[in-house]
């Protein structure tokens, strides 16, 4: 059954069409990678799904519920979706532990001890147990991004949205974040990730969608979309990526 179903999404910014009749379906436990040039609409799509942007047309269904209905409480929807940003967006005035337990305690009304125990367990699992009491500015970029992923996971989301989560990282730190996402996939997490890491998309995604000018131009299994693309625009994009040495 489809966990997420987007139909005919349209979004414009000041006359600029960013999403144009875009369709996307994500099944439960499926990992979908969104690829495409900057400005192709990947980030906007993720922000629309998380109701951070208002749609200009189309519908988004999560678990069969139309979440694009303006009568839906966006806070309730976001509790079921975890989002991780390119720039980590950790709260600088809170320690790692406080960053992670903020939503469980304030949104889900869990007891402090319970929320902290869960946070420490998640941190231990990704090898950051020793950093629980540190502040974000004491962590490397890769560590910050892993904390941001843990923070999203602490809400036990149905769906994770990852917006170019390795783009701001030094190359030698990318691996630790990708390994964590791989573990999430093994645990059965449903994920939609916008990425420039083609090798990783091929590795981890069940389906790759190539976006261009706000539309899904081509989608399918990674071997097909990245290996034998049928659309000229996909081929052109991949050729540029290969020339840049990124595939």
């Amino acid at each position: 059954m489809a966990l997420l179903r987007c139909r005919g999404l349209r979004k414009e910014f000041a006359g600029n069409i960013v999403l144009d009749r875009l369709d996307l379906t994500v099944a439960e436990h499926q990992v979908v990678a969104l690829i495409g040039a900057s400005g192709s609409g990947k980030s906007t799509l993720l922000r629309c799904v998380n109701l951070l942007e208002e749609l200009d047309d189309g519908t988004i269904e999560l678990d069969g519920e139309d979440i694009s209905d303006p009568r839906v409480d966006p806070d309730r929807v976001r509790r079921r979706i975890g989002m991780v940003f390119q720039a980590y967006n950790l709260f600088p005035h809170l320690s790692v532990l406080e960053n992670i337990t903020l939503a469980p305690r304030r949104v889900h009304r869990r007891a402090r001890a319970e929320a902290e125990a869960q946070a420490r367990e998640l941190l231990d699992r990704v090898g950051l147990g020793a950093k629980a009491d540190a502040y974000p500015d004491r962590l490397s970029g890769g560590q910050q991004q892993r904390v941001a992923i843990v923070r999203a996971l602490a809400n036990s989301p149905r769906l994770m949205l990852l917006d170019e989560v390795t783009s701001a990282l030094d190359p030698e730190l990318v691996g630790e974040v990708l390994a964590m996402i791989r573990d999430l996939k093994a645990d059965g997490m449903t994920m939609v990730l916008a990425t420039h890491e083609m090798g990783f998309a091929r590795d981890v995604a069940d389906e790759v969608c190539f976006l261009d000018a706000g539309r899904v131009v081509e989608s399918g299994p990674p071997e097909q979309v990245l290996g034998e693309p049928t659309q000229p625009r996909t081929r052109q994009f991949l050729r540029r990526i290969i020339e840049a040495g990124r595939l």
Partner: protein
Amino acid sequence: MTLLEHTPSPAQLRRSAYRRRQTVYSVLVAASSTAALGTLLVVAVTGAPGWDRVRRSFLDPEIAVDALPAVLSGLWLNVRLLVCCAAGALLLGLVIAVLRTLRGPIFFPVRALAASYTYTFRGLPLIIVLYLLTLGVPGLRLQGTPPVLVLGGLALVLTYGGYLAEVFRAGIESVHPSQLAAARSLGLTYRQTMRHVVLPQAVRRVAPPLLNDVVALQKDVGLVSLAGPIDAVRAAQIATAQSFNYTPYVVAGVLFVLLAIPLIAVTDWVTLRAARRQSGG
């Protein structure tokens, strides 16, 4: 330990010697220029034709000692008033700033009121607010009108609340939208986002300008004496009227500066800490 030992090269030794000589030279230059300027000032002031008269009427040690107890007890009123007014103005400013960020049509009147408050009281001279409250309000002859001191304090809180509200608002607006996006995407409501994510960062960021306004408030607290209460300035005025000598004003002035020094020191320390934090220290 032997591993850490390092024999400087001759070039490094020459450089170190040169830098030491430069340091000695700098200290000597600073000391002599300070001495020259100080001498010049002393000669200019004490050499002035009216110096003896001025010294007698402004710097009389006997009169200073006599006036000190009265001025000090007046200053105690300033201190108490400062603490209450600073707390009140900070609270009012924060509330007004938060009200101005509320969204949604139902809050329109609240937003409009909060905005007109900051416009009005930042434009209105403190002295006029003071007269309106301390002379106008008792004039209404209502039951339970608070004493003049409370009304004067209220005038200070209203005036400074307007400034502090704008400082708080600047802080709230300086928190990057990505922080809001992160908080909202975790499912926090707007109010929770303000309370746990935006305000803590905003207040930290604007702590130096807030404290600076409190230092300014410390001086303006003396203006309530215009309405009658005997604070340090008024006590000095009374002493002056008795002795026909202005020394009590100088005493009050020195005490005000002494009172401000710790506050200013705290402000500088907070500013320095904020700057260090900004640079990723």
